[in-house]
């Protein structure tokens, strides 16, 4: 499959028969007469459910027709997924009647044993690794930060997710994953007195960004190379320093933290 399917139907049944039924439901006499290929593919699942996926944007809406019809033939629900417009719409059909389901299409498809094509190839699969992130937060201690982050997560923090280290310069935050996520933003939002310096950088520091946060707001962004299009207020120095190495030294954050393995 070369394209992203705009719609899909997840249904029980025998694949060859499903293809035949879907063809009868979706294709018009003119389509048959013109020898058109069906605007869908049937992708066998590894269980009772199989996916019928649509590749032609003109056929958005066909999923409703197919699901409605097939649901008359099976006792289990038949799902119609439409991904042409955001947010995606998932409906379950029983006996010809549809209901909106608040579930992700891919999660649903996987749970039924028929993952949608393309879901295995996402943009994080290429070799490029995301930039790393660490932070220094002034005005907060590790214990308090741990409590706040845990409250925000709603559950105990996973070991290694954050390294919280009190230093003379402030609380230094790093992660075994190389990315502290939004910890600096959360702490700055929850603790209005704190000032956070979130640093995002490439291994060679040729891409280097520092967000200065207070009260959850970004009050300044240092960017190298400079960004003209940033929607954050730009600053040209952090703690009086203008180069990545010196800024890191001023924040007490080791440059090697940004090296990817």
């Amino acid at each position, binding site marked *: 499959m070369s394209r992203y399917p705009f719609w899909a139907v997840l249904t029980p049944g025998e694949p060859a028969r499903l293809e035949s039924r879907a063809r009868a439901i979706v294709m018009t006499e003119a389509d048959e007469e013109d020898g058109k290929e069906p605007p869908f593919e049937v992708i066998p699942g590894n269980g009772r459910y199989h996916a019928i996926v649509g590749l032609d944007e003109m056929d958005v809406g066909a999923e409703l027709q197919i699901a409605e019809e097939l649901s008359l033939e099976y006792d289990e629900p038949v799902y119609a997924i439409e991904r042409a417009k955001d947010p995606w719409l998932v409906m379950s059909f029983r006996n010809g009647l549809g209901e909106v389901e608040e579930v992700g299409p891919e999660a649903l498809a996987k749970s039924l044993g028929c993952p949608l094509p393309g879901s295995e190839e996402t943009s994080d699969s290429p070799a490029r690794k995301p930039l790393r992130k660490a932070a220094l937060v002034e005005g907060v201690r590790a214990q308090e930060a741990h409590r706040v982050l845990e409250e925000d997560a709603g559950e105990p923090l*996973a070991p290694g997710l954050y390294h919280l280290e009190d230093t003379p310069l402030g609380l230094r935050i790093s992660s075994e994953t190389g990315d502290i996520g939004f910890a600096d933003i959360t702490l700055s939002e929850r603790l209005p007195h704190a000032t956070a310096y979130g640093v995002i950088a490439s291994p060679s520091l040729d891409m280097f960004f520092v967000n200065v946060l207070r009260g959850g707001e970004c009050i300044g962004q240092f960017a190298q190379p400079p960004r003209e299009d940033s929607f954050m207020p730009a600053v040209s120095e952090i703690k009086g320093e203008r180069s990545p190495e010196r800024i890191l030294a001023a924040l007490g954050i080791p440059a090697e933290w940004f090296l990817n393995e």
Partner: protein
Amino acid sequence: MEKKHRGSEVGACAVTRGAVQSFQALLVASCLVVGLSAAGGELSRERVTLSVEARPRDEDAQRSRLEVWQEGGVLRLRVMDPGRLVVKAGSQVIAAGALGFGEDQRLRVEPLAAHPPTALPRVVNREPGQEEVEVHVPAGAGAGGLLTLTYEWDWKHEGKPALVRTWLLPPMEQDFALEEELDEPDVLQEAPLPLQVDPARPELLWVPGYASRDELASRLFGDSSAVDAFDFEPCEVPPGAEGVPGVCVRVRHPGALLPELLAAMRGALDAQLEADVEWTRSQLTATSLDRGGAVALVERSLRWSQRSSILDGSGQSYFDRYLHALAAWRDESPRWHLGDTLVQDWHFLGEASEPLRKAIALRSKRWKTSYTVTDGSPVLAPGSVVGRFYFSDGFSVQVRLLVLLTEERSLERAELRVRNLPRSGLRVIIPGEDGRFRGYSADFSLVDGAAEPLEHPEGEYYWYYPGTVLIRPGDWRPGMGSGTGELAVLRRAILDTALAKATPEEPQSLLGLDHDVLALLTTEERMSVFDTLLAGPALTSGMKEDAVHLLGRVVLSMPVDEFPALERELTSGGVLEKLLGGNEPGKVLLGQAFTQKALASFPLVLDSLESLPTFHLGREGETTHLLNVPSGLVSTTLVAQGAWSPKQGVRLGAEPALPGEAAGASKRMALYFEPVRHEFKARYLSSAEEGPRSRALHPLEWVRVEVHGPKPRTHLMTAMELALLASLPDTSLLWAALGRLGEMHMVHGAVSTLARAPLMPGVTATATQGGTAAVARQAAVREFIGRMSLVATLAVVDTWRDELSRTREGREFLAVHDLAMLALAGRDISRLATSGILRELVHRGGLLLSQSGARASAGLHESVELARALAKAIERMLAEGKAIATPEGLRFSLPGGAEAFKQAFFAVRGEMAAARALGGIRGAGLVAQEAEKTLDALKLLAAESQEMARAYSAVARRAAALPADKAQAYLAAVESLRASARGAAKPALAELLRRSGAPSLADPLAFMKDAEWLVGHPELDVEAVGILAKKACTGRIDLGWLRSTGLAMEDLNFMARDKLMPWKHFQQAAAEPGNGTLQRQVRKRLRGIAGEMLTERNAQKLFPGYRMTGRQVKLEGKHVIDHELTSMDGLRIQHGVEVKGWNDNKWRQALDAWRAKQGATKLDKEQETRVEHIQHLLDQLADAAKAPRGKPFLVSTGKLSGPTRAKLSDFLLKNAPGTQLIQLEEAQMLEKTKQLRAALKLPEDLSGGAP
């Protein structure tokens, strides 16, 4: 659980296209009516109690009145006594099954042997005391006929009169919704040959009789050279079979089938396995089983043993899977007094078990037995039992080996040798354990008076040794070609040996040669074979039947260009006399081969049927028509090739001279026909009356033969073919031969391969793919439109043979049809086009349709008209010089010729149907002036484009199929639509008109009213009109609903231009204002659309230095992005723009979920959904950022909180660096969303808050 199989499928086995499929589509459409009714709970249910006691009451009711069945209803059957149920709508079986009660006293439904498992009635209640099944009666099935329920009692009531209930099925109304006319088949596509898995024996496939071996090989395996990878099986056509005439094939290695065919076969086998396993278990768990039952179980086991080479999806053979069901009894002692031994090991059926044990020993991979095979190895000993033949009544006989005939290193070599041996009789080839292949003669262990298995083609052979190939006596393989490489060498060697051995007195070595070997004969050798047979006693001795058949095979397998010389030989004095004097049915094959080769090699011209000499054969009441066939030498004139005009045909007095023949006066043998009429006036008295002798006929002249009898027919053939047929002195042989005249499979299969340009000698077909000749030929085949289309179209006509045969016009049409098929068998449409056959086909078809009128069924009407239209389109293209007929097919003189041909075809279809429609209106006494004007206008438009020609065809056909008043109203609506269309909307108009003519469209008047609004709207963009028209034609938008919305023109244009617009969802939301979940989803979507609108409308402001150049752009990867910008600097770099209508809350939730996933936190369902969305955004941005595009833009609301903004910035920096965020004014987004909601009539207030 699956509720039921509905619609067109016959199990998983139908693999058909074209006309057959179109008909199926009609059935499916009918079934949908049922489905929709079911959804509404409005199905009518007719209840019948299947009880012996209830029967008399039912019968009384039945006698008093014949109820009219309510369309789309359901038969609900209360099962009280076991029996066998068959429900038929007209002649079509719509449900069948054995209803009984298992050991657990619960209802069981099992398939009946004669019907596919898919036709089982559906169980609705298994509860003891409340058992019920139901049968859906598809709307339109058997229209106008009877719905018949037959229930034959089983068990203790067996033999009692069956319960029969009937209802009158409503006729097809001449209504839009139930319009009976068949859809336009896929006539101009080189559609794949229709195939069907045999429902009872899924290892067999039904294929069209007109297909050649290489066409079948291509269809079955995707490899046209695999002509020897399947065998034809002499099967009876299953009752109720529809579609083109079929022959049955068995594939030697099912694993080599194309995947979709293998899947269909497996699907059918799975279904049958399930049914057989259930049946087997019920037999083995029964309280008693007699020897007959045990034999039946063994037979079923052997049937599955033959499927040991067919593997299911997991790689397990179907035999092993069946044995799995038996395995539970494997170690049991013989039960139910079935034997006196106590040996275990698959011996639970006593003495009857032996065949099963032998099959397991030789064919199962998974299951073992201690059974010892004593046949010897690797050479099987004479007398070895290698298989069993089962008659249809369950009686069986052993197949034993006689002597070893040959031993070879490959199956192909062994088969070649065995097939070309002079001796006849049963032969088998069995692979040995040493890897060699051995051919043996074989026979049956028959007791005195036993039936001869070879006379029972309905019986089944079960072989113990896997890979056994059966060769029946007289099992010839036309169409094999003589092959290449070592096989061609072997064929040559076999031929040389046979030629060297044969003498006029002892020609036996020649008599077994098959077509593939005979195809290697040189001209001289062919003449020598003829001389050998004609000079000696072969044609008059005991071997004359074989000798005449050999002559037929020689003619069939010879190159076309050598036939004229052979024709001289065959029709010369001495030979002709011998041939006419014989009484061998093989003469009929020789005659057919003669006509086919004559058509392909001589410029024969068919004049009108009325001008042809007509002769009568057959029986008509007390009268029998026969012909005497004298011959004599007459004068003729040979015309030099250069002076010969093909248009004048071949006749006595003017016929083309052969190369080397001197032009001028000559002599040749002519044929005469003397009618002889026998009248049986009293029981023992009869009189014979001889009619006048016909004029002298050239053997190549066309004659017309009227066959009298219960099913009168008309045939066209050469005088020579008639002479060979009519000169059979044995009238029973003559009648039998007459009955088989329409069967031309042998001729078709034989000539189609050989008529092609030969492949380069000594090189395999694959190797020549790149060769100049092969490439040129393939190109020619690709360019060619018509032959396969015409063959397929005419083959559909064949399915109406019975109906056609009822009238004189029908018989005459069929006669020309058969001749056209014969001509097409040679793949030579030029002959067809120049011989006058096409013209006569068009003429006869027209007479048939005009004279049969409403009496002809819609299907017949449709298929005949199709054939006429195709023939006429070919003629028109030729006459206008737009196409040239060549031996390879039609060539087009201008680029785009193939498309022009299609346009011509549809225009012709339109013209024919228009004439019918107008005739109908006038015939009803209505004024046709306006309708004529409309159809004329469409005809003019049809000349402009193929789309318009298709529209014309569809409209005219629909009008022709409607009652006159409705046709008038329909055409008035068409005219109104046509007249209202803006000039720029013509392409959309063509689509909408075409759709209005589709039989599946229930209300074309309403459709066209809405379409009129669409194509006549002055402010709708042309692009928007085109997209909306396409969507309206496929049912993806309801134009009536769209018209009812209050969308501002600017918004409507914007939304309509978007192919991805989910209109159906909006319509559904408007219809369900109280559905909060749906409303919230749709609101979010409208917000996104509002964002896209604002982005486009504010593009200049939002993207200074860029111009918007595209919408919904497909990216190089897999995704689509909302807009495309192009930089206005000199670089003209393109950038993708993705618009997200997400508000602050949605962004925050999505980003937090994304982070939670990165932190390996277990996500709930909502979080997973959010992650999917954000991942999709990343995928889109990554796709959009790929070179040569520049950095992408992300458009979002400007109203984001500080933390959300910071998180988004953070997220983009890390995951989609370079992406530039563009912000829209939230107030504008809210306002636009609100406008859209109001325009679409969606509720403003939602409980639970707006998103």
